[in-house]
């Protein structure tokens, strides 16, 4: 029987006596406070300490900065010094906090759950490794010292193989380069310098290569600057987030990309430096525009247009890759694209060799071979670290079965996952946030990774490095004291390589401070080999018939590492805006042909299996192609709140708070169950495209959840104009101008004037001619001053030095939702789960709204994004209606929210025209150890309290306090909101509008494309949006 503690009892008894005391049973968990006997080093209460480190969530190894409070890591941010992430961090990288504090982390060394000592575990492992005549090590891709240490350890054990597990199909890219240029390296694709970028399948903004670097470079190239902006065309079966940011999306059948590339090359050849090359000419004559057009169904005119755009005298760039390109033609596509780059003369200009990027792992084929060897008994010991091949590889790879044949399988993974479940012994390694390490993601980039906090209390883990060292020691190799010393020894070497003099201590300290050593590299071009246009490389073109693509996204990766990060599940997928689920994307035409409707549940059958998913009809996918998100279908430990779904609305489903347990919850389905283990013939990379034998509706309506309100409003939408044949519903802005656009031409003063609110979108309902926000500030300050004087005080003084404002550049925003993750992390925003989302109880303070609007000129649908956060309105609707002043306009222009004063009338939320306020419908749980990630600078809100974005006021305070301590004013750019800090596109600027030199002031005062959302209601929000800029009023 759960006890009723005093407070609950009075709360309940006071109103309702015995009857309710029953409901009141069960009480909030009591937390003992244990005084810290031995405080960790550098423990400064209330002060944020940041550690420069390296992100290990994917093989891109971006630099990151880990913010810690009270010796606890609370947030991961990008490292501004790092040449790749340049201060930003992707959704997955930020979610490393949830990996660090994952509820599914393994508590300590164990054999099938039975706890053991580290020493005995390691000794046993060492002994077995000695006996074994061959050892297999499967781990995350390592580009740094660990690789060497690993090799030494394996050598000491008497020979072993190491495989790097990563699903990104980079072997194809390497193979393609090898064939075309004779070098298997991954070059630098200088997107930023290109005038025209054409991607063939490569979802550079979702998952291909380093999406942070890509986004940075992409904005450099594509954002409007000095009257011009680059052009971006995406050629792919699946539009994805990447295509949604393109100026043009060319939907093709999977496998047809190569044909298009060659046709374009053919168009360009005459004007190219290589026009003299007869063999090439004859090869390309096999791919005349018309023949390709007839083959692919892409009109000749489009291809010619592509060629025209691409002809930039070497300043254009074509990229290929990504999951959608892995249709069996992958390597040929890479070769064809390399050929295209060569013909366009981009080699050495936008395609720079010598960078030698280290990203991705070994091909899937090598794992199949390994599995074969395991079956044949070649390996007696298999170690698996940080990889989950059992989940990620298709079932018929036979990996799981092979693993069962191995006498000793040891998992070194941090978390318990599908693979570690099959291991005989689990020796959990620490998360990279707790461990030493380093990485060389590119030539000249030496990333250093340092522990930002002591090992998670209650979790008996060992860092991978130390484990290796210990293992080497037990194996009798000459091992250093610990991994740190080993690492430092390595870095002594790097110091030499870099030719940096001075004492090593200084070098080491400097490296630690800036997160490593970053230099450039000498780039060189390459020459096209004749093999690139050998007939063997001629693409066949895509197969006909229904095919399905397993697509990645910023929130979804084929490795499945994101599959149990609640932030990435709760934050809507950028395009579909769906949460906590798998879905299948279908084009309207296909849907109509197959007779399925939006939100229908369908059963998809392939040669390998079948699964059920909900239909999401979208224009952004080629006809006859389906797409499902990767990395789902995993079990997530999540609080079991009592569900009201499908239950009577009259009968109670009473929940005692003591009932709330953390139970594993299956989220979506694993698309890999549909995929066969088919690999690319040339590169051995896994194919992510497979033929679908049958798709039929089950007759059920799928339980798909999205915060997008319009999803519910079909019948309302049906009566408005934008209704399409496939019952997609209406996802347009209905002329309400949340995301407005204009054109380059208009900005440059011809072809319509730029004052026109996105004139090619459906017309804005209202045009307004209001005075600018800033005009009314003196007025406001004066009024307050008058009344302050009347009441005979000297406080408060309004807008004395600071008035915080924000500008959001929609031309830069890519809609990747990294800002949303940052917001969740910074402000302790609760994750509520699928059912709460479905009843409109989402807590997100910042949403990236996705609009699919009709272009009034072309009639095509176009995708726009608008990040919406609280506008801190000067004439806010929320403030005036609060009966208890729980929200008011503070002297720095922030719409302050006083949680402790709030009684929860919810009037403010009703009266907010931007619907930015969130109410705590219950007290939400943060499953341990996730609660340790909570930011102490932010209150954790209880039930019945209203909350919302406050421009990260905790960060503002922090900045001001720092400035105060240093006896100076806050300088511009010192204070960054979480969303701004992490935005890889620099779309968000934030600062003090009273400071004329501040970036935000400059933008707001000088821009010709600024506007406020719903200006006609005159709430005077402090967020200025800058219009999206398109080429001749068209975009994908």
């Amino acid at each position, binding site marked *: 029987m759960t006890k009723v503690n005093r407070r*609950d009892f009075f709360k309940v008894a*006071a*109103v*309702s006596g015995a*009857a*309710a005391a029953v*409901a*009141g049973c069960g009480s909030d968990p009591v937390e003992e406070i244990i005084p810290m006997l031995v405080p960790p080093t550098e423990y400064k209460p209330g002060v944020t300490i940041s550690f420069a480190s390296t992100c290990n969530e994917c093989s891109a190894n971006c630099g990151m900065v880990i913010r810690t409070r009270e010796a606890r890591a609370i947030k991961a941010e990008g490292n501004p010094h790092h040449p790749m992430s340049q201060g930003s961090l992707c959704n997955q990288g930020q979610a490393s906090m949830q990996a660090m504090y994952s509820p599914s982390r393994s508590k300590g060394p164990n054999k099938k759950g039975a706890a053991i000592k580290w020493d005995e575990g390691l000794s046993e492992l060492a002994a077995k490794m000695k006996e074994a005549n061959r050892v297999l090590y499967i781990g995350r891709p390592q580009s740094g010292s660990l690789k060497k240490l690993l090799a030494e350890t394996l050598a000491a054990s008497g020979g072993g193989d190491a495989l790097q597990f990563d699903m990104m199909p980079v072997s194809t890219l390497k193979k393609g380069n090898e064939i075309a240029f004779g070098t298997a390296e991954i070059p630098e694709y200088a997107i930023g310098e290109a005038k025209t970028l054409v991607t063939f399948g490569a979802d550079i903004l979702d998952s291909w290569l380093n999406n942070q670097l890509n986004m940075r470079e992409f904005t450099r190239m594509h954002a409007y600057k000095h009257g011009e902006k680059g052009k971006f065309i995406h050629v792919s079966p699946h539009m994805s987030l990447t295509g949604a940011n393109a100026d043009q999306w060319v939907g093709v059948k999977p496998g047809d990309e190569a044909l298009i590339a060659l046709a374009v090359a053919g168009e360009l050849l005459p004007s190219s430096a290589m026009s003299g090359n007869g063999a090439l000419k004859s090869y390309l004559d096999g791919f005349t525009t018309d023949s390709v057009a007839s083959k692919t169904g892409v009109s000749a005119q489009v291809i010619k247009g592509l060629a025209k755009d691409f002809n930039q005298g070497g300043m254009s760039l074509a990229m290929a890759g990504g999951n959608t390109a892995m249709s069996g033609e992958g390597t040929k596509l890479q070769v064809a694209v390399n050929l295209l780059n060569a013909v366009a003369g981009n080699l050495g200009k936008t395609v720079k060799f010598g960078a030698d990027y280290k990203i991705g792992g070994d091909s899937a084929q090598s794992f199949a071979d390994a599995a074969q060897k395991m079956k044949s008994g070649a390996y007696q010991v298999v170690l698996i670290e940080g990889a989950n091949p059992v989940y990620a590889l298709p079932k018929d790879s036979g990996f799981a079965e092979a693993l069962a044949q191995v006498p000793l399988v040891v998992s070194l993974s941090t978390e318990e996952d599908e693979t570690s479940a099959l291991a005989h012994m689990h020796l959990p390694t620490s998360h990279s946030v707790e461990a030493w390490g380093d990485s060389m993601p590119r030539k000249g980039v030496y990333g250093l990774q340092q522990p930002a906090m002591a090992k998670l209390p209650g979790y008996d883990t060992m860092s991978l490095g130390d484990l290796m060292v210990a293992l080497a020691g037990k194996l009798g190799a000459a091992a250093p004291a610990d991994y740190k010393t080993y690492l430092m020894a390595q870095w002594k070497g790097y110091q030499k390589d870099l030719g940096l003099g001075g004492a090593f201590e200084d070098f080491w300290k400097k490296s630690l401070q800036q997160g490593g050593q970053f230099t450039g590299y000498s780039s060189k071009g390459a020459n096209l080999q004749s093999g690139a246009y050998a007939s063997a490389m001629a693409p066949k073109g895509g197969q006909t018939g229904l095919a399905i693509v397993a697509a990645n996204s910023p929130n979804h990766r084929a490795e499945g590492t994101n599959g149990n990060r609640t932030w990435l599940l709760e934050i809507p997928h950028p395009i579909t805006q769906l949460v906590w689920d798998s879905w299948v994307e279908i084009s309207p035409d296909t849907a109509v042909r197959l007779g399925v409707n939006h939100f229908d549940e369908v059963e998809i059958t392939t040669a390998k299996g079948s699964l059920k998913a909900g239909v999401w009809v979208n224009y952004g996918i080629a006809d006859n192609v389906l797409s499902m998100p990767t990395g789902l279908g995993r079990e997530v430990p999540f609080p079991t709140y009592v569900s*009201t779904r499908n239950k009577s*609305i*009259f*009968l*109670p489903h009473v929940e005692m*708070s003591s009932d709330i347990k953390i139970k594993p919850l299956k989220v979506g389905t694993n698309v890999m169950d549909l995929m066969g283990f088919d690999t690319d013939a040339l590169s051995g990379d896994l194919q992510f495209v497979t033929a679908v034998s049958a798709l039929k509706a089950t007759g059920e309506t799928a339980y798909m959840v999205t*915060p*997008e*309100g*319009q999803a*519910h*409003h079909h*019948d*309302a939408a049906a*009566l408005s104009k934008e209704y399409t044949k496939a019952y997609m519903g209406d996802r347009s802005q209905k002329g*309400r101008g949340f995301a407005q656009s204009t054109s380059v031409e208009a900005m440059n003063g011809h072809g319509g004037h730029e004052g026109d609110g996105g004139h090619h979108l459906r017309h804005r*309902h*209202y045009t307004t001619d209001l005075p600018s926000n800033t005009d009314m500030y003196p007025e406001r300050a004066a009024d307050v001053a008058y009344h302050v004087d009347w009441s005979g005080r000297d406080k408060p003084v309004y807008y004395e030095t600071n008035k915080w404002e924000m500008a959001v550049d929609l031309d830069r925003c890519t809609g990747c939702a990294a800002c949303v993750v940052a917001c969740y992390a910074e402000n302790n925003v609760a994750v509520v789960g699928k059912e709460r989302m479905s009843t*409109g*109880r*989402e807590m997100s303070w910042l949403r990236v*709204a996705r*609009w699919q609007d009709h272009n009034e000129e072309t009639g095509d649908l176009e995708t726009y994004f608008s990040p*919406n956060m609280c506008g801190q309105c000067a004439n806010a609707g929320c403030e*005036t*209606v*609060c*009966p*208890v*002043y729980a929200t008011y306009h503070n002297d720095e222009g922030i719409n302050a929210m006083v949680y402790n*004063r709030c*009684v*929860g*009338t*919810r*009037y403010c939320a*009703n*009266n907010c*025209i*931007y*619907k930015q306020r*969130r*109410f*705590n*419908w*219950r*007290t939400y749980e943060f499953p341990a150890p996730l609660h340790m990630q909570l930011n102490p600078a932010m209150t954790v809100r209880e*039930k*019945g*309290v*209203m909350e919302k974005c406050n421009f990260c006021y905790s960060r503002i305070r922090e900045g001001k306090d720092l400035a105060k301590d240093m006896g100076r004013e806050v300088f511009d750019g010192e204070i960054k909101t979480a969303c701004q800090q992490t935005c890889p596109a620099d779309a968000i600027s934030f600062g003090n509008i009273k400071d004329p030199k501040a970036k935000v002031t400059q933008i707001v005062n000088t821009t010709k494309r600024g506007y406020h959302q719903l200006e006609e*209601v005159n709430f005077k929000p402090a967020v200025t949006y800058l219009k999206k800029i398109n080429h001749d009023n068209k975009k994908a």
Partner: protein
Amino acid sequence: MSNVTYASINDDILHSMKPPGKSWFASMAIILVMLGMGIFAFGYQIRHGMEGSGINNPIGWGVYITNFVFWVGIGHAGTLISAVLYLVRAPFRTSIYRASEAMTVFAVMTAALFPLIHIGRVWNFYWLIPYPNQRLLWVNFKSPLLWDVFAVNTYMSVSILFFLVGLVPDFAVVRDESKGLKKLFYGIASLGFKGTNHEWKHYMRAYLLFAAIATPLVFSVHSIVSWDFAMSSIPGWHTTIFPPYFVAGAIFSGCAMVLTLLLPLRAIFPGFKDIIKIKDMEAMAKMILFTGFIVTYAYSIEFFIAWYSGARYERALFWFRPFGELKFFFFLMIFCNCISPLPLWSKKLRTNVPALFIVSIFINIGMWMERFNIVVTSLAHDFDPYAWGTYTFEWVEMWITIGSFGWFFMWFFIFVKIMPSLAAAELKEALNPPMRSAHE
């Protein structure tokens, strides 16, 4: 009315106050169960948060506020009858005003619960009251919700006082007609009222003033309630038509509720039949017809303005109401409030008790739906299409709504038994006094 004399009035009243019978206790039991459900649900909500009700974001107000407006509305007819009709000396007032005034008091008592029930942290409700406290926390008089606090409290205290003052002479009647403990009890209740000219002099003047003061309250309270919506910025709420529209609606629903209560009362106590005469009921029916038309007009003018103003958000909303996924509630409202009163045009039905009763029930439902439409659909479909939402009912709010009816009827049942449900003094006033001249 020859058979009604000063004496017979007393007897009828006393008959209605006889010790309760089986049926009374049976219905009281049901009522208490309903009340219990409400209390349990409320306790659950306090413990676990607002999740048990269908409110969500963007729809921050739902069934609770609907109930609040509904009950306040019910209250209005009572005051209207007792105060306004008193001032205009309407003949049919005297027979029904006591019961309807009791209804007012209890309805407002019910309504006053809902602002508390609907707030997220009810244990802090007193923060809404401007009382001196050591933290020097004050309230925001710019908030329509605070106006509500004052309006509802004022209205409640005034109607309770008005009610009790009216009761004093009748308590005196009961006192003099009874003996023993009962006599003592009513003696205290009647404050030793004797019926001397000195008492009547001040009493009648004060009573007149009460009526005069209560009259503007009838209009002010519901106007202020309507400002909770009209003062906001949401399409569908931000309308100047609301105050008159709400007041008319309130009287409409109130009269319906009066019928719902008095028709059974008449049936239960035969003596009432020749006091609460069918023509009084008919007058109520006429009132319903009249206010019903005002309400219908308000509905149509809302749509007209939405179209005529060219305000696009407004148009979108009024497109959504009849065609969106909440259309059922809209059409239910239209049927109950605009169609169902129409039969009352025929005198035959107006004077037919079952017909009247059924119509009154329909109107009660319809007026609840009206408030639901105003509160919910407006929030469901406002400015930002991305943030549109929809509403589903949940058990907690259902139970609490049931409980509120339990609460209301509990008081009414107690009232019928311990208080004279007819105003003896005023009924006598309305009779021709006994004259010797008339007898010879």
